[in-house]
């Protein structure tokens, strides 16, 4: 086929631009970095997302503390469940707000118009959400330790929290970008998200509980493996389908 040649008109502004296609990987990483920077900068100004997640998470553990009057052993037994319920609900608030910010003033279209692989947008949003989620967890875990008198500072538990949070935001970012395009986005996200998260929550609660109760590693490994596989599978799925989800 003959290549069509169209003369580029004179530049709109005096600077002569030479925007050549950068190597795909460089463009991907640049877009990824720009989106993470944008999310952090916007949150630093508004503090809407982090404050909502944090207040909600602290309220949940406070309510559980009063609602369940527990002896020392039971406290260790329920800690994992209470923690993951708290992270799940607070995380939903964050995911909703994070994508709502993209929908306001049509910003999601602005991102989709960029000449980069759209998976860069997904990963940019995912890592932004992960940072917010981890920030909330860094504050919630010590508060929980104080309130429930449970030692949560164990390397194993921190690994489980990282793997669980990664899987949660991987699926959550994908489903939030789907839900945000509907009128009922606030209620749709948890309805879509929680059923898909069941394997992750079971694995995270079992593994966390195992570390807190000092169960042998042999019994914890299967749950850690499940978490790892869940993360890999859903990140791969999101990478493949994100383009189709965001395009009409």
């Amino acid at each position, binding site marked *: 086929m003959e290549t069509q040649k169209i003369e580029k008109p*004179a530049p*709109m502004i005096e*600077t002569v631009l030479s*925007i050549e296609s950068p190597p795909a990987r460089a463009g991907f990483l640049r877009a990824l970095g720009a989106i993470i920077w944008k999310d952090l900068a916007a949150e630093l100004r508004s503090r809407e997302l982090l404050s909502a997640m944090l207040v909600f998470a602290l309220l949940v553990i406070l309510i559980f503390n009063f609602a369940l009057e527990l002896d020392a052993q039971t406290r260790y037994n329920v800690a994992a469940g209470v923690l993951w319920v708290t992270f799940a609900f607070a995380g939903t608030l964050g995911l909703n707000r994070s994508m709502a910010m993209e929908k306001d003033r049509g910003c999601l279209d602005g991102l989709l118009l960029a*000449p980069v692989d759209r998976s860069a947008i997904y990963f940019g949003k995912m890592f932004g959400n992960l940072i917010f989620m981890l920030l909330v967890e860094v504050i919630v875990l010590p508060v929980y330790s104080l309130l429930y008198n449970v030692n949560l500072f164990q390397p194993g538990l921190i690994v489980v929290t990282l793997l669980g949070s990664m899987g949660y935001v991987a699926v959550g970012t994908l489903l939030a970008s789907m839900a945000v395009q509907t009128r009922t986005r606030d209620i749709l996200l948890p309805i879509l998200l929680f059923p898909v998260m069941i394997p992750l929550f079971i694995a995270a609660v079992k593994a966390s509980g195992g570390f807190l109760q000092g169960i042998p590693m042999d019994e914890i490994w299967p749950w850690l493996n499940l978490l790892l596989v869940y993360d890999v599978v859903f990140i791969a799925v999101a990478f493949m389908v994100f383009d189709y989800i965001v395009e009409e």
Partner: protein
Amino acid sequence: MEKPPIIQVKRLVKRFGLKTVLHGLDFEVQPGEFVALLGPNGAGKTTFLRILASLSRPAMGEVRIVNYRLPQQAAAVRRILGVVSHLPLLYGDLTAEENLHFYGRIYGIPRLERRVQEVLELVGLTARRRDLVRTFSRGMQQRLAIGRAVLHDPEVMLFDEPHTGLDQDACQMLDNVLREVAARGRTVVMTSHDLARAADLASRFDVLSRGRIVASAARSEMTSDQLLGFYRQALQGS
């Protein structure tokens, strides 16, 4: 000899579920043309522009911009497109300068600092560059939206009802920027309800009704007063 079209659309069909919005639409634009796409609400103007912008996938048909096919070569098309809609596509919690920096980084624009200053000057927002976009009036947001769209110096610009919600002064200012864009040889496709404004700006009028282009005329073929008659006749005949 006539130049090859910069935008070429053949038998374009778009469906949302069972509803067909575009019915085999054909459309061509020559380089440097300013086409006003006119039509009533629900005619499919925004849907058509979103397909050109690679934000929506066609169900059938062929769409080429320069020599790139959509949706297969969407990333290449997006590099040469600038899009302005009635929404500004800007982040309210970032300043004007930060918004342009953000988009500039995503587009990989060289010498970004200088470029951002020039764009802010072009749209007359240098004095407000460090203010948060959420504090801007609708007119200022729309000017910055144009700045965002021209930041990477695109060859083709798509405007989707850019005057929506603007007061008279802001419309005037937007018109001046649109004229500047056209005067510098950019190809422009603009959807509009406002016939007077379209008559003032465009070099060609296409009427879109029920998902098809039902009439097309060059600006040189009619006076501004005749445009209303042409538009009504096109709609009656469709």
